């Protein structure tokens, strides 16, 4: 067992690999709530895969569909019911990079963790259960398509990326998920939900030793090795797919997105780049940035700017969002802010770095946020504590260097949703 004590956050993490191959991270917190996630590095972008040497082109939305079906039990019930019976609340989510099943509870943690480990690693897919799920996820897709925010987000990703599967919605489409079969789901499950491909992250009043004992009970015997898996990368060009995309929609106010693609280098220091991207985003396009205030004051935007910064070993981007009655002026201002950036003023830099640190420290009060962020960083090839250290050590020169990487105008795109005329 490896214990990492992190003075800056006043937290510690114990990690170990269970004999089953399961990676375990335990974050001890003196709180009422236990939170546990069991995640796999299989997300919506993993469409081209080789499993035991056989190449598969998975339908869009496979990871999300599989996430839903994990809860089915052989007796026709679902795992939610088993958690519920002991007072635990279960859920699951799928991201571009990973899928995780989770629960929270205030007691009977050991039982709940056993249920989680058992149901996620077992599979039960039939024609009937797959068919039953199609309309449910179909409605979820419809709800997303009803949302201007989701639609704008999907539009900007499609504009930014030429080939990378991040340009497809995590849920896929009604037609793509209709191609899923019990056999394909079983193959994918065997490959990505073997304990050796899973990471368990637990936060609460429990020790690593106790968690190890529970893992021993669930996986008492040596397991056969998992199928070999190769995630086939997509070669994404540096230039964007489409510089501008416009959609007419039933909205009362236009919304715009300005995106900049940042393809990671093979040896990218992910925590450091992620910290720099977050602080640069905050400084240029954050809610309290000078630009956001200026545009708000002028009446160019409603509310404030917001942004999403993400970078991992597969893809990276900075996307800025605004609600505005003046979309062209807003987008021009966003483009100029990046093009004109040279050096961060010392107080601006200090304010943004303190803000990011404060947000991160406060999030550690929640077992849910702590465990979720810890797992998310691992799935992105990063580490939460390394990210905190990178934030703390960041300098204005780091921002200048990163901004220089982003300034190429062929790396940026914009998406607009305008009211129907």
């Amino acid at each position, binding site marked *: 067992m490896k214990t990492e004590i992190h003075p800056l956050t006043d937290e510690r993490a114990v990690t170990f690999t269970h004999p089953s191959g399961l990676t375990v991270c335990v974050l001890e917190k003196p*709180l009422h709530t236990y939170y546990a996630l069991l995640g796999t590095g299989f997300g919506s972008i993993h469409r081209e895969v080789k499993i035991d040497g056989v190449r598969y082109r998975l339908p869009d939305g496979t990871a999300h569909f599989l996430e839903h079906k994990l809860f089915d039990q052989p007796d026709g019930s679902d795992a939610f019911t088993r958690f519920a019976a002991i*007072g635990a609340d279960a859920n699951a989510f799928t991201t571009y990079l990973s899928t995780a099943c989770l629960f929270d509870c*205030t007691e009977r943690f*050991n039982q709940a963790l056993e249920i989680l480990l058992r149901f996620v690693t077992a599979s039960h897919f039939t024609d009937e259960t797959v068919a039953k799920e199609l309309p449910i996820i179909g409605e979820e897709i419809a709800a997303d398509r009803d949302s201007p925010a989701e639609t704008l987000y999907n539009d900007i990703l499609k504009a930014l990326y030429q080939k990378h599967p991040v340009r497809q919605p995590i849920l896929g489409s009604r037609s793509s998920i209709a191609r899923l079969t019990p056999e394909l789901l079983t193959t994918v499950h065997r490959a990505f939900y073997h304990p050796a491909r899973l990471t368990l992250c637990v936060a609460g009043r429990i020790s690593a030793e106790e968690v190890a004992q529970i893992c021993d009970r669930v996986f008492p015997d040596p397991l056969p090795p998992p199928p070999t898996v190769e995630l086939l990368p997509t070669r994404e060009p540096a230039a964007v797919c489409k510089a501008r995309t416009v959609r007419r929609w039933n909205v009362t106010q236009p919304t715009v997105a300005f995106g900049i693609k940042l393809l990671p280098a093979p040896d990218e220091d992910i925590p450091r780049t992620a910290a720099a991207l977050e602080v640069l985003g905050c400084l240029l396009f954050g809610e*309290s940035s000078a630009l956001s205030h200026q545009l708000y004051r002028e009446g160019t935007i409603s509310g404030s700017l917001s942004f999403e910064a993400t970078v991992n070993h597969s893809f990276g981007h900075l996307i800025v969002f605004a609600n505005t009655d003046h979309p062209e002026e807003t987008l021009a201002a966003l483009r100029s802010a990046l093009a004109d950036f040279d050096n961060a003023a010392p107080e601006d830099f200090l304010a943004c770095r303190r803000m990011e640190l*404060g947000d991160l420290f406060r999030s550690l009060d929640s077992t849910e946020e702590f465990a979720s962020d810890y797992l998310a960083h691992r799935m992105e090839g990063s580490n939460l504590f390394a990210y905190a250290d990178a934030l703390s050590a960041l300098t204005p020169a780091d921002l200048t260097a990163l901004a220089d990487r982003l300034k190429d105008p062929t790396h940026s795109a914009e998406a607009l949703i305008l009211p129907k005329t």
Partner: protein
Amino acid sequence: MTKSISASLPEVVPNQVRLTQQVRLCYLPMEHCKGNYLSLRFLLPLGEMTSTCALLPYVLSRGSNEYPDIDAIDRAADLLYGAEISPMVGSEGEWQVIGFSASFLADRMAPDGCEILDGVLHLLSSLLLSPRTEGATLLPEYVESEKVKLCDRLRSLKDNPDLYAIKRSEELMCAGESYALYERGEESQVAAVTPEALTGAWQNLLSTAPLCITYAGDCALERLKPLLLSRFGRLTATPAPLPPTEVIRQAKGELRRFTEKLPTGQCQLIIGLRSGSVIGDEDHAAFSLLYAMLSSAPTARLFTKVREERSLCYSCSALSDSHKGILLITCGLRRERLQEAEDAIFDQLRALARGDFTDEEFESAKRWLMGRYPILEDSPIALAGWYFSRSPLGLAESPRTEAERIRRVTRADVMHAAGRLSPDTVYTLLDRSRTRKEVSHEN
């Protein structure tokens, strides 16, 4: 074996302190937290001033004498390790709640010794008590600008069909009651607010309305109290008692039906019921458990029976206002499923009233619900919210006390609570391809 945490962690014991006649402090010691939370909330009856007062926190948060604009305010907050200072507009029953909230890092976590709490209080008092003015009037530029933005937000409610449907169903169900007034204001009334009227509302607020300060965090009361008095001790008015929320325990007359249309891809069905139970009632715990069995517990029938087993809709859950005594069941679905979903929902309500549920379902929902109360002690914001919502009624039971009440609820209590639900209104928001405001009343 893991131990029962509720027994092993000490309970957070609130300390209610009257700082002045007008200002009360609810102090919640939470030493283990890295984050602190503080709210300044004024309570006002919903009424003719609601739209004006809904605008006030937004205008006050635009600038003060010391922090003249948003740039200066945000810069100060960011330097306080990203303190989140937010204007608040909400409601508890038929009381409008306006003010500010602040979430911020505990002083002990600042690597450079920054005095965050003191800085936050300084900033909040500046915004509330010394706003930017032109002469004696709140700065007209800020007033006009915030009016436009609030009107935009109110108009854009239609972009979120689920939220819009809830608002409309409440308005229609509670027509003639103060509750029908939207606490965030009505567009036409907000547009008519003048800087002078808003200034009057601000002065009236400071001179008549009770201010509830809730603090949850690691600062000792002995240090906090003088800090608060130095910032807010000048508020010394004797507030008038607030009128109680009008509670209608039984729906009057036949079930009312309303239908509207919006150009969306999904329909919204809202069933409005009078719950017959409000916070502070002896048997309110039974309603809380009924609500869990219906909507919030993992075994909740709206999810497991209506959505999962019958695949009738994408979403199905309930909202309750425990001050007002109403329960709204909301459902996002396709048009052709409307009747079937409505029937299925009423079937579930009748089944609960008949006692058509297993001991296992009852016990698991009870266990789940009891487990939700200690969780409040994990979060400064959640615990502050718990105590604040009870304070206007003079209630101060802890979450653990409520959990004990839940423990004593019987099957018969839940059946009785379900039997008391009286359907009042069915509201349907239909999808369609073009917008035309249309209300039909189908009695």
